[in-house]
């Protein structure tokens, strides 16, 4: 079994269906008699709805029904929720405006849901939607993040008269003030963390289906966490009780956070299925995804770092304004708070940290978690500060980092986190060696000869995965627990089905989870099936986000496997007629200590079900065990990425010349899959740094609403990456896993911007560093150099 166990590069079990075109995505599913939904969306960023006249549209060919906000109000369909309560500095709860699934009285962003048309075909639904007459009274929109809370700004939600959602803080303000008083040097920086649009390649889709005989609903949906969707749709939105609502998230074509949330569209599909008595299918086109999916990032930050005469950091003060868009999305409030400020200590020993975050409403699409969620923003702040501070102090950026690294563990930061383990020097040293940092000066000279500017930038990141323990996050405002569930079902022939609450939408769980199970039980990996994404099969789960599936989801499987092994030993003890304590289990065999008596796993499974060797009083038949695993701490993946860029000052084009990543993810189950996660994360991070950025005009129109204007990283924008690892096993879970899904996206933006500013010789450039921005910055740099 050595070939498929933990640590093996096992080819993915799920690939066959994907490479042969037999994947089963939501849009590939069709229900008998289904009708098609099309959403009429607001063309205005901010407007009152005076009247909606659907008469003409309703008479159009193929139209089955048209619904507006009035219909969902009449049916008492609850509003969409934000599941994490944040309290402001003054103790007041965050100001959450109502978020109906179809607009009631007012629209608040371009793309907001005004009405839904259900028709025989999608084209007919769209034709009819264009015939709906909406009488809008346009209002002045709030678009600019910096001025959103200014006196006299238009009010987006009555519940938040100054457009402020909360004004939150964490850390010891007095201690930070004292640190700055002692400082020999203070580094100050202003940063924009640009707004991103997630762009999983599969657009969102949903099919609502209602069985009137059983009064039961089924929702097929592109979700990263079908159980959370069911919980919210039943407990909060009130569509159906949980036992009458089945949520299926089949193959899902990428998520990156954007498919965590519970959106208006799936809510309406499932509700409308009962109203019209037919399955209702909706599939987003890409433009709708741009307009109405939850966006990511969008921070303005001022940060200051206090440093003593020896180059040691004394304190950090970070002030951020976060754009949450027009409504609070499902986990929006937690992203710029608990997923952000607690990470500001980075890999460094910083005695005092104070973070202030003001979150505001604007007339733009809701903003929520996108790959990394808060942690990329934190890493960007601290790693840009480290680089700038080193330059100001005339220190080598690597040496400055080394000097301030945390070197003993556990380490309690001043902002909640207690890092269990790590070796930051090791990853930095390895990255520098692999990258040939020593050869950089020579490469820079060669670039200069060719008229190019070359720069090198570091990013020593930390992230926190497997957000936990549940009791702790509950005390911080989370509306849910953040454990995971697993059930291991051993069949009488010894094959195994593992039901998990994690959801795989590209991460390869069907393979890595099977590696764990096959290795532990000593059975062929072909004999293990991973079942996920269906609330009728898996009882409850929390889903996949925040790089939690390995650390939390697999730990739950370990717990269930512990129970299976214990029960199987009991069965074996009856079969082998030995005391339970004398049964050993190794390499798929149960044997009696000190004898040659043994029985294999499949035979034990059979014996568990035929139950011939024990009585019901002695032992329950069957071999099936479940477990819930609640972590005792976060996990703390870390690492160092080194970016090397070459800039053409004539055009401003930045080329990534070289990339090295050395990550510490703890124990790695499948290095092939982990490296793939790192590659993808880096690409998204480089995308943020060089290419991507959502742009709204002053009227709140999204100017980057298609791939014509939103620059997605393509193959020729990127290099091949050199990816390596160091390992300090995580101490808080049984497998020693830390998590890897977000690391690249967290590390990369700062590495790129540190390299670009190194090449340019000044700090005055923001993300995305497009050719135009870099050209302007290069011209400014040349002008400055000439002075």
């Amino acid at each position, binding site marked *: 079994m050595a070939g498929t166990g933990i640590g093996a590069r096992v080819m993915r079990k799920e690939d066959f269906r*994907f490479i042969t*075109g037999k994947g089963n995505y939501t849009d590939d599913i069709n229900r008998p008699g289904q009708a098609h939904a099309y959403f009429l969306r607001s063309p205005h960023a901010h407007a009152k709805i005076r009247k909606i006249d659907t008469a003409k549209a309703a008479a159009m060919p193929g139209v089955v029904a048209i619904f507006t906000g009035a219909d969902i109000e009449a049916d008492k369909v609850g509003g969409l929720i934000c599941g994490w309560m944040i309290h402001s500095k003054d103790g007041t709860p965050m100001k959450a405006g109502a978020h109906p699934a179809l607009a009631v009285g007012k629209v608040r962003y371009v793309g907001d849901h005004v009405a839904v048309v259900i028709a025989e075909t999608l084209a007919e639904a769209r034709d009819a939607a264009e015939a709906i007459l909406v009488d809008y009274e346009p209002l002045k929109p709030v678009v600019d993040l910096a001025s959103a809370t200014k006196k006299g700004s238009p009010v987006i939600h009555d519940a938040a008269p100054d457009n402020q959602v909360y004004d939150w803080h964490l850390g010891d303000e007095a201690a930070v003030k004292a640190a700055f008083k002692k400082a020999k040097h203070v580094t100050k920086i202003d940063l924009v963390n640009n707004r991103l649009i997630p762009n999983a*390649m599969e657009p969102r889709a949903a099919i609502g289906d209602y069985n009137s005989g059983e009064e039961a609903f089924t929702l097929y949906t592109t979700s990263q966490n079908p159980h959370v969707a069911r919980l919210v749709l039943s407990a909060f939105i009130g569509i159906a009780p949980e036992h009458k609502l089945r949520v299926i998230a089949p193959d899902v*074509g990428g998520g990156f956070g954007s498919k965590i949330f519970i959106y208006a569209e799936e809510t309406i599909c499932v509700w409308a299925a009962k109203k019209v008595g037919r399955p209702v299918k909706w599939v987003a086109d890409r433009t709708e995804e741009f307009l109405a999916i939850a966006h990511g990032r969008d921070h303005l930050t001022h940060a200051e770092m206090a440093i003593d005469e020896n180059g040691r950091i004394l304190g950090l003060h970070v002030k951020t304004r976060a754009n949450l868009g027009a409504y609070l999305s499902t986990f929006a409030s937690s992203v710029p708070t608990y997923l952000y400020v607690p990470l500001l200590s980075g890999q460094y020993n910083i005695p005092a940290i104070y973070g202030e975050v003001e979150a505001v409403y604007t007339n733009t699409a809701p903003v929520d978690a996108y790959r990394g969620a808060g942690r990329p923003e934190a890493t960007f702040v601290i790693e840009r500060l480290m680089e700038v501070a080193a330059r100001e102090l005339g220190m080598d950026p690597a040496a400055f980092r080394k000097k301030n690294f945390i070197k003993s563990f556990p380490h309690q930061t001043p902002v909640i986190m207690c890092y269990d383990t790590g070796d930051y020097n090791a990853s930095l040293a390895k990255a520098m060696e692999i990258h040939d940092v020593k050869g950089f000066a020579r490469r820079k000279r060669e670039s200069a000869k060719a008229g190019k500017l070359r720069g090198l930038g570091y990013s020593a990141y930390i992230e926190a995965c497997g957000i936990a323990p549940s009791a702790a996050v509950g005390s911080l405002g989370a509306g849910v627990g953040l454990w995971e569930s697993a059930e291991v079902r051993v069949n009488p022939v010894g094959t195994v089905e593992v039901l998990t609450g994690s959801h795989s939408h590209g991460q390869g769980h069907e393979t890595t989870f099977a590696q764990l199970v096959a290795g532990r039980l000593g059975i062929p990996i072909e004999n293990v099936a991973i079942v996920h994404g269906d609330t009728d099969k898996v009882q409850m789960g929390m889903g996949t986000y925040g790089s939690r599936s390995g650390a939390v989801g697999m730990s739950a499987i370990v717990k269930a496997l512990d129970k299976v092994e214990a029960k199987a030993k009991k069965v074996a003890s009856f079969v082998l007629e030995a005391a339970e304590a004398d049964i050993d289990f190794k390499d798929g065999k149960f044997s009696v200590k000190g004898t040659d008596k043994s029985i294999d796993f499949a035979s034990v499974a059979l014996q568990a079900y035929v139950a011939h060797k024990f009585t019901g009083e002695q032992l329950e038949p069957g071999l099936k065990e479940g477990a819930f695993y609640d972590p005792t701490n976060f996990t703390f993946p870390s690492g160092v990425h080194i970016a090397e860029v070459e800039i053409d000052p004539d055009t401003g084009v930045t080329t990534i010349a070289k990339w090295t990543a050395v990550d510490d993810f703890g124990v790695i189950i499948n290095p092939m899959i982990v490296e*793939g996660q790192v*590659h*993808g994360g880096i690409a998204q991070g480089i995308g943020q740094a060089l290419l991507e950025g959502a742009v709204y005009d002053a009227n709140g129109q999204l100017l980057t609403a298609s791939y014509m204007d939103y620059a*997605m990283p393509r193959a020729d924008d990127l290099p091949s990456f050199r990816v390596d690892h160091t390992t300090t096993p995580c101490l808080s879970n049984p497998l020693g896993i830390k998590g890897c899904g977000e690391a690249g996206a967290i590390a990369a933006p700062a590495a790129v911007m540190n390299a670009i500013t190194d090449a340019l010789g000044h700090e005055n450039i923001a993300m995305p560093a497009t050719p135009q921005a870099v050209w302007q910055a290069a011209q400014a740099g040349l002008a400055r150099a000439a002075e």
Partner: protein
Amino acid sequence: MPKVSMTVNGKRVSADVEGRTLLVQFLREHQRLTGTHVGCDTSQCGACVVHVDGKAIKACTNLALSCEGANVTTIEGLANGTELHPMQAAFRTHHGLQCGFCTPGMIMAAIDMVNRLGYDLSEETIRHELEGNICRCTGYHNIVKAIQAGAAAMGGLKVAAE
């Protein structure tokens, strides 16, 4: 409604379609060949790439009626039962896919690349030739490796057959 007939994966098929029916709709909705995907509305993502008369095209930017009499190959038409096309096998071996959504278009584009440019493809060539295919998961690193290996394997196959 007008009728369109074409050969899809070696099979003669026909259906009554509207003028506005796209080739990708014909394949997905009329033929239930759902391996060809739609990822954008502006002809850029390449999730819908199929071969028409031996050339890679975007099935979202071609009318079904324009394909009257054409010979269409989709991702479903590549494997021979469980025996994968060398390019499919290379994507699996080199972990050239994660969520799988862009994969059919990537594989069809890759085979077309080999058909045009041969079996020995440089990294630079592959990256350049992938301009019309967007992947959000892999960072392209392993896609590039997979295509390089798949191209070589296609060449080996051809040599072996000769």
